[in-house]
């Protein structure tokens, strides 16, 4: 109580720093230990052949990286997702803007977009194969189908949420219609478009995994499904973890790109 403040403050600061450091290294380690512990215990509990433990998974991971299977299949899936995602955005964003701006086009298109966005992309898998063959195009189509409507709807919502008074202010200051569009509507819509794209990107992984499991000869989904026939649960788990890690990486990359390219438009992009 009566300790001299000049002594107490630095000591307390040092104590805080030390405990913070301990916390920062200790807690993630604790988390990792508990996670791996539960995993190892579950593997023994369920039996190694039906649920591989951390060691088996790591061994299989090294084997698959070594013979190139993992990278090849991961690249195949990633390529399909990126291409389909870009095609979907290229279709969804302009139509979303159109529907947001023009009431007539919204009324004309809404019955279809409101229905099609609830059609699970994976249910189109057989039609996709019939229409585009068993090659890459049919998978890219599914991802594009998955992306288009999510991006379209969020773009439309974004355009319609533009502050009327901002538009009026711009018009009053003499902005032409195209100036209003480029200077007011687009910047205000960017966060909505980015959010829609992020959700679509996340869902692409479910779609591509399912599509590759149902009908493909390459990709992580087909790696998983092929391994099942040999009862190689370790390969299955490596495939699942790879997809999850790819999902995390794509999400981080997309957020980084969105901040880089669209950061000036919205503070929303800086949040998680």
């Amino acid at each position, binding site marked *: 109580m009566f300790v001299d403040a000049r002594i107490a403050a630095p000591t307390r600061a040092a104590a805080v720093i030390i405990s913070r450091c301990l916390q920062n290294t200790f*807690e*993630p380690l*604790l*988390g990792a230990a*508990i*996670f791996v512990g539960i995993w190892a215990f579950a593997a023994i509990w*369920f039996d190694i052949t*039906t*649920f591989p433990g951390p060691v088996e998974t790591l061994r299989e991971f090294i084997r698959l990286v070594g013979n190139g299977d993992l990278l090849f299949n991961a690249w195949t899936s990633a390529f399909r997702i990126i291409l389909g995602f870009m095609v979907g955005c290229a279709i969804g964003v302009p139509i979303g803007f159109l529907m947001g701006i023009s009431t*007539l086009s919204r*009324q*004309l*298109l*809404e*019955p*279809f977009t*409101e*229905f*099609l966005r*609830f*059609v*699970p*992309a*994976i*249910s*189109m*898998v*057989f*039609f996709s194969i*019939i*229409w585009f063959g068993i090659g890459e195009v049919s998978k890219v189509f599914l991802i594009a189908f998955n992306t288009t409507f999510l991006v379209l709807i969020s773009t439309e919502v974004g355009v319609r949420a533009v502050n*009327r008074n901002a538009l009026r202010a711009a018009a009053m200051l003499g902005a032409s219609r195209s100036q209003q569009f480029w200077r007011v509507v687009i910047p205000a819509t960017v966060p909505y478009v980015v959010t829609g794209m992020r*959700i679509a990107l*996340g*869902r692409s*992984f*479910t*779609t591509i*995994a*399912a599509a590759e*499991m*149902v009908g493909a000869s390459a990709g992580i*989904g087909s790696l*998983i*499904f092929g391994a*099942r026939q040999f009862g190689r*649960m370790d390969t*299955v*788990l490596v*495939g*699942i*973890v790879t*997809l*999850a*890690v790819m*999902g*995390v990486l794509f*999400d981080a990359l997309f957020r980084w790109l969105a901040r880089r390219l669209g950061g000036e438009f919205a503070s929303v992009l800086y949040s998680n």
Partner: protein
Amino acid sequence: MVEDSKGNRNNRAANAVRAVLSQLVAVALVYLAWEYATHKISPLFFPSPERFWRAAIELIRSGELPRDIAASLGRILAGFVIGSGIAIPLGLLLGMSPLLRRVFGPYIGLLRFIPPITMIIFAIVWFGAGELSKIFLVAFGTVFTVAINVEAGVRFIPVNQLRAAASLGATRYQILRAVCLPSCVPFALTGMRIAMGMAFAVITAAELISAEAGLGYLLEISRSFMQTDRMFVSVVTLGLLGLLTDRTFRLLIARLGGEYVR
């Protein structure tokens, strides 16, 4: 925008009529285009409206379609309820305890990125090829989405609200009940609505891969006979069901969450 209320009402009515009319015109145009286009191409490529309706009526008459709808919806509902039941307490815990969040947050963040359908192989090994494995998949897909939303809801509560409750003498349990739970409701419902959309995709894929009933099964079995008309019925039914559940959910949010949703 200040407008004369009477004029406004007339305008609104006129606008509504115009909207319905243009929507009808659009649907009619697309239907005609469908009819016309399918005259030229093989029904194996895309079924004509006539074939589609015939297949739909046939499937309803024979009881196949109602059975498949019931099977898919039942699985979705069961998995969804179980998933949410786990997710809401989990999200509350994560939201209220910074320690738990720091320790387990990263792993939940990673597990959330696992496409649920890839778990089907483990699900079948663990729970057999029956109902339980599909219910597990839907629950797996639901848990993380809902939990993360609930957690966000708890963390969204202004600190001063918690302090106010505490300074008025509320116990931890009372704070949980009176402050945290209500302010999580809109977030939980939003997460559930997103998860519901996912559940349809997951169950379709799961039924494509292994099932004896359900809309995905209908799709798969029709494909093996190249009955594109039946396939199309299944796809359309899936879309309609998704639309219907989403609207129901929106209505429920308005009804149940009404007092909580700002």
